[in-house]
């Protein structure tokens, strides 16, 4: 272990005490990034990171991110730094502005050391479809297992101890599912809580800025910095931001937690179920009421299709601006349509083309009512049911995934409840725009498995308090491949 394996709080204390400098931290982070063999990076910014670190000489006591290195998924716009979203359609693109979250972190004097790879245009969940190929789970040195996606490189960077936090994005579960496979804290806030200006859109009604840390305190402190209204993003909320870490250690006894019975039933892995049931007993011993609640199984089975229809349809429309004319590789043609055709034909991978065609099919006039609008109506029904549970309970508590990180050659029965429900239920948080956090529960044969808490809209502070109580129960704070632990649950 070295300083980079510490949480933001401990790192801040070390920086204040001048036991380590931002430059030393940055040099070590860059070294680890270059040495990493998990295929996590699109671009490592040695020059920019070192130059910025050299300017940070006087520690700032009230700025917990001062001098701390981090990475960002390569779908955040970064001024002067190549940004491709892991797609050839953006090869060579160098943005002329910073995303709001990048700007905020820069103002907080956190040090961006690189851009991480992802499933192409963030449309995937395996970490295998970006233009750099497969990204590997650092818990499996044989490179047979996924870390999950789409925020695969960011997940690797935190799990492998390269940086203490990493920005990602979450449209269905793209931070919270890899967090489960990587033993990480993966958090997405309420829709609108963090500005999305400069985040390349996938499906804006579902997209969230999200991030990875190795502990709950770090996650809460980051929201202090990242949350808030931004006039560049008309969907960002005007609600005042809070001090999200101030109540972390306050008691949680008396709170009520709902476990959705059908989600647990859809999981076949008995070891995961047993550990999860044990965790429920521990929560009860801590004074929390835990009840099993019902969620119409048919409605849950429709979740994945609803997600596919809405997200593919929105993506088809959003990515119409990727034409190689204003940015991205320009391709010659006899007409302007041919110019765009050639750029798009060469720039998109097969998977992206398939997703776009699916989206286009759902939007065809003959299909729009039956597919797209019906999916949107179904989303409303799913959200109504989710919010009804949260009227009676403070949180919904479920396993984040039905298994440890899958191997690259594993195949699922795509019509089974395990796939349709257990593997895709985290999208509930995107449909309803609710804050949601994944935390490690235990390790099965050395591979992490996570759980997820979802709270009411804009109740992030309370969610962090609950997550912090859980982290104490699990004993898995600061878990990484450099700091392996057994845990208590």
């Amino acid at each position, binding site marked *: 272990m070295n300083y980079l394996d510490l949480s933001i709080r401990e790192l801040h204390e070390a920086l204040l005490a001048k036991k380590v400098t931002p430059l030393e931290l940055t040099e070590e982070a860059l070294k680890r990034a270059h040495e990493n063999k998990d295929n996590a990076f699109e671009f490592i910014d040695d020059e920019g990171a070192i130059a910025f670190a050299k300017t940070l000489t006087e520690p700032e006591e009230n700025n917990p991110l001062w001098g701390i290195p981090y990475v960002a998924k390569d779908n955040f716009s970064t001024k002067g730094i190549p940004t491709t979203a892991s797609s050839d359609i953006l090869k060579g693109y160098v943005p002329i502005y910073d995303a709001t979250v990048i700007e905020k972190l820069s103002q907080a004097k956190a040090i961006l050391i690189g851009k991480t790879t992802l499933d192409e245009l963030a449309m995937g969940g395996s970490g295998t479809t970006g233009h750099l190929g497969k990204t590997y789970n650092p818990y499996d040195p044989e490179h047979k297992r996924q870390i999950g996606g789409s925020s695969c490189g960011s997940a690797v960077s935190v799990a492998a101890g390269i940086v203490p936090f990493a920005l990602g994005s979450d449209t269905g579960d793209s931070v919270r599912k890899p967090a489960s496979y990587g033993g990480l804290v993966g958090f997405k806030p309420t829709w609108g809580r963090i500005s999305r200006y400069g985040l390349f859109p996938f499906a804006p009604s579902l997209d969230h800025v999200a991030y990875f840390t190795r502990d709950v305190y770090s996650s809460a402190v980051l929201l202090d910095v990242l949350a808030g209204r931004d006039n560049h993003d008309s*969907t960002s909320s005007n609600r005042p931001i809070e001090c999200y870490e101030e109540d972390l250690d306050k008691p949680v006894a008396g709170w009520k937690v709902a476990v959705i019975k059908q989600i647990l039933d859809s999981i076949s892995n008995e070891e995961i179920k047993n550990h999860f049931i044990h965790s429920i007993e521990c929560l009860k011993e801590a004074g929390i009421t835990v009840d099993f609640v019902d969620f119409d199984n*048919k409605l849950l089975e429709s979740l994945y*299709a609803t997600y596919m229809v809405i997200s593919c349809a929105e993506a088809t429309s959003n990515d119409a601006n990727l034409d190689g004319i204003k940015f991205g590789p320009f391709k010659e043609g006899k007409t302007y349509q041919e110019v765009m055709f050639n750029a798009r034909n060469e720039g998109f991978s*097969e998977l992206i*083309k*398939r997703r776009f065609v699916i989206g286009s099919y759902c939007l065809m006039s003959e299909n729009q009512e039956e597919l797209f609008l019906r999916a949107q109506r*179904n989303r409303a029904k799913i959200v109504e049911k989710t919010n009804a549970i949260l009227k009676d309970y403070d949180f919904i508590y479920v396993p984040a995934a039905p298994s440890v990180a899958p191997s690259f050659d594993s195949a699922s029965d795509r019509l089974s409840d395990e796939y349709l429900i257990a593997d895709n239920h985290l999208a509930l948080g995107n449909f*309803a725009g609710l804050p949601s956090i994944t935390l490690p529960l235990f390790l099965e044969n050395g591979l992490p498995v996570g759980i997820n808490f979802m709270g009411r809209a804009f109740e992030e502070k309370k969610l962090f308090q609950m997550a912090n109580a859980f982290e104490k129960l699990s004993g898995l704070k600061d878990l990484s491949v450099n700091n392996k632990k057994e845990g208590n649950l």
Partner: protein
Amino acid sequence: MKKITKEVLTDAANRLLFTMSDEQYAKLEDEFKILIKQMEKIGEISDLDRYEPMTFPFDCTTTFMREDVPEEPLPREVALKNAGSKQDEQIKLPKVVL
């Protein structure tokens, strides 16, 4: 619902300004076979007529006009920085009217 055929998929791809190989269309047709079964799960949900299509999780919160404060526009050279085809400080494309 429009029947899924290679022609329908080809038409959709061409409207999206790309094409796919025969092998890729075949793979997409196979994918649709599963996807349609998954979509049927939405068809099984009752009383959806009483729900409005949901476009965002919450009502969008921006309901005011921002202050009319003058700002510096993007300099032309910056705006054109990433364009691959340029001439005389403009993006150059094939003639639209011949």
